[in-house]
């Protein structure tokens, strides 16, 4: 296969397994490109991309922008704080105004689940979902799987546990879809209040004990507590959370095997993960960031090749 089956990247659930493999193979080439003395290729010199972020982001926005620039696309970026959205403009109007300036692709982050899908139905541009509420964050899941593939050779057959705030996490949902599609086994672990009620219907087992979860897994993906999304109290105190679900070096040392540690960032050091673990030899956190650029280059390149 040399072409994606979709024209937009709205979520992992709209992809096929072959799409993921094609993205990874293309990302391998781009990873080589970004390690050259000159890290740029001219493929997308006639493509213009708008990055529209209605929610804060550092890593994802930078990573997308770098990926676009390394492909030689023209890039405009804006965040909602400075835009007319504050003056009452609707999403479709905002985007259509941007598209009237001859933009070919839109990368959007929005706080509402389904915002990217909605946009793809109403505007004429290729849409990339950079996170929609607690729904999906497909490029993060792709780069996570890509990092597992890089470290362990393959994703199929691996056991991955996702630890932390699953309820509010788009990273968790996209990761569950992506990992299962590639034949990995997924479990989640966290306080009962932060585990979605129907997560087992996705074929995901729930672990309430971190040590047991770690004994089982090959890879642990540690998520942050999303304080900005917690409208009520989900657990008694941060201290108690740390005691039960914080990953420490002692805990890692006490396991009788080595596991790969991942984190999508931003890290709350000393809460879900200690500095020692985050900066330790089993952590692939910075590899994830590097791979993020290569994977996003692949996604944008493959989607752009479908724009006629």
């Amino acid at each position, binding site marked *: 296969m*040399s072409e994606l089956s979709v024209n937009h990247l709205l979520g992992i659930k709209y992809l096929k397994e072959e799409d993921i493999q094609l993205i990874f193979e293309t990302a391998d080439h781009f990873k080589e490109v970004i390690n*050259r*003395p*000159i890290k740029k290729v001219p*493929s*997308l010199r*006639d493509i213009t991309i708008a990055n529209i972020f209605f929610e804060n982001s550092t890593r994802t926005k930078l990573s997308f922008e770098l990926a676009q620039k390394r492909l030689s696309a023209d890039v405009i970026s804006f965040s909602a704080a400075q835009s007319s959205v504050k003056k009452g403009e609707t999403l479709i109007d905002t985007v259509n105004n941007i598209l009237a300036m001859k933009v070919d692709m839109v990368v959007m982050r929005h706080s509402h689940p389904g915002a990217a899908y909605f946009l793809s139905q109403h505007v004429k541009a290729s849409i990339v979902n950079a996170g929609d509420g607690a729904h999906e964050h497909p490029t993060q899941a792709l780069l996570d799987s890509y990092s597992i593939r890089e470290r362990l050779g393959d994703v199929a057959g691996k056991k991955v546990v996702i630890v932390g705030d699953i309820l509010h996490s788009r990273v968790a949902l996209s990761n569950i879809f992506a990992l299962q599609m590639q034949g990995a086994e997924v479990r989640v672990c966290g306080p009962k209040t932060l585990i979605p009620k129907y997560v087992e219907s996705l074929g995901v087992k729930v672990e309430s004990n971190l040590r047991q979860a770690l004994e089982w897994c090959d890879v642990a993906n540690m998520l942050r507590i999303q304080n900005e999304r917690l409208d009520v109290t989900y657990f008694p105190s941060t201290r108690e959370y740390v005691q039960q679900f914080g990953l420490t070096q002692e805990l890692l040392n006490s396991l009788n095997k080595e596991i790969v540690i991942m984190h999508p960032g931003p890290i709350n050091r000393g809460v879900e993960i200690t500095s020692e673990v985050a900066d330790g030899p089993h952590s692939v956190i910075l590899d994830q960031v590097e791979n993020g650029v290569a994977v996003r280059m692949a996604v944008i*390149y493959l989607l752009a*090749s479908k*724009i006629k």
Partner: protein
Amino acid sequence: MSQKVLLNSKEVHIILHRLACQLIEKHLDFSSTVLIGLQPRGKYLAERIAQLLRDEYQVNDIRLGFLDITFFRDDFRRGDKPLEANKTQIDFLVEDQKVVFIDDVLYTGRSINAALTAIQSFGRPSEVELLTLIDRRFSRHLPIQPDYRGRQVDAINQEKVKVCWMENEGEDAVYLVTQH
């Protein structure tokens, strides 16, 4: 579809030896020369030439790399088929080196044009040359000519030049294929 033999195995071998000798004549010990096979099809020719230089002409320390030009092509989104990338493998800098591009067939010259842009990602070569097994005359879109050529061929646009290699197709030969 009919095909005609342009070069048989023996002719291919004689030409490869001649091209290798011409390279030695110009580059002597290859101390500041690197060979770059253009992906996908130039790879086989480049490997053959490098092997000949090493085994038959005792030129040691040949530096050989492979360059993929997919992301540098000027027909992205313009063709019917999506472009597929191949592996680039250049483990050395080309800064101040003499670069010899190696490709099997020179046709419009657009691949070479893309390769000239692509190679800049690895430094500024002091000189760039082009070696091709087959040079299709009168079909260039750009002012690009080979420095070393195996055989010059007159072929019309409907015709295709097919280069076969022992390691891939089971024989060394060049065919002119006519589509009906």
